[in-house]
């Protein structure tokens, strides 16, 4: 899955996902990616989040919505992501997942669980730029 957040210079926030889902799934199964609040969520007044991982588990907790609500409560993006995934880990300590979170003013962060590290890609600023791959330890 790719989960992406885009924020333009005026602070217009959008988020989305695209995926072919889990390998060997039972036909008809859909994961978290196309579910609002689960695979991604955006609110231009605060920011956005996009998640990836075991969609059968993650979709039970709406982690992207939780992260955006964390931003609304004043958490920074990393804290918001960590808080959203921690909610899942209480019930499923072995789940695999990652989340990227950005506030509408351009701060960003990531969190993950069940992997050694989680890479994510960032391009920022008003000039043509190179993409930076960052990693967060889980």
């Amino acid at each position: 899955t790719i989960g992406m957040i885009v924020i333009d210079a005026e602070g217009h926030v959008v988020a989305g996902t695209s995926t072919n889902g889990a390998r060997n799934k039972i036909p008809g199964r859909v994961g978290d990616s196309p579910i609002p609040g689960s695979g991604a969520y955006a609110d231009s007044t605060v920011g956005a989040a996009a998640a990836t991982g075991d969609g059968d588990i993650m979709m039970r907790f709406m982690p992207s919505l939780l992260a955006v609500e964390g931003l609304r409560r004043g958490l920074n993006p990393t804290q918001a992501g960590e808080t959203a995934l921690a909610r899942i880990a209480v019930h499923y300590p072995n789940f695999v997942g990652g989340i990227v979170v950005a506030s509408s003013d351009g701060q960003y962060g990531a969190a993950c669980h069940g992997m050694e590290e989680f890479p994510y890609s960032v391009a920022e600023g008003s000039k043509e730029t190179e993409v930076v791959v960052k990693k967060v330890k889980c």
Partner: protein
Amino acid sequence: DQALPLVINTWAFTNSTLRAHQWLVVGESDPIDALVEGCSVCEREQCDGTVGYGGSPDENGETTLDAMIMDGSTMNIGAVAAMRDVKHASAVARHVLENTKHTLLVGERATEFAVQMGFKRESLQTDRSKEMWEQWKNNHCQPNFWQNVIPSPSMSCGPYEPISDNAITQNHWTSNELNEDDHGPNFNRFNHD
């Protein structure tokens, strides 16, 4: 703000990030354009086999696609799920957002919608996805997502039927004992939602 515009995405799918950012900065497009363009790069490049056609075959060997776009200013959403036979999932999701009052279309009906919007119907199976599926079949359909069924999903490809309450009682099982693992098998960098 120096940080804006900003594009950030899961995993090291840098061509998608770059495309979306260029679309914003050079193309001066709106962020939805940039998002669709960025995600579409991954659909074409089949990022890690986890996005786009020819990856993650289901038990029948078929690849289906899911995509969603959310506009955080209007709170409008367009999404497709389990869409068959159309490669451009993000672009179809955009049509759901822009050309319908709905939020999510699924399955064969999502395909029919896509065709109506001008997309081509074509198989999403590739030689690689067929090979992955055949390896899985040859490995007795392991791993899989079944539980509490007979024959045992750890040894058999089915067809399955649910274990009856009588069988559970007679064998002194509890439903928790039957749930050997709450998680899907082998989620990792190359297998994820």
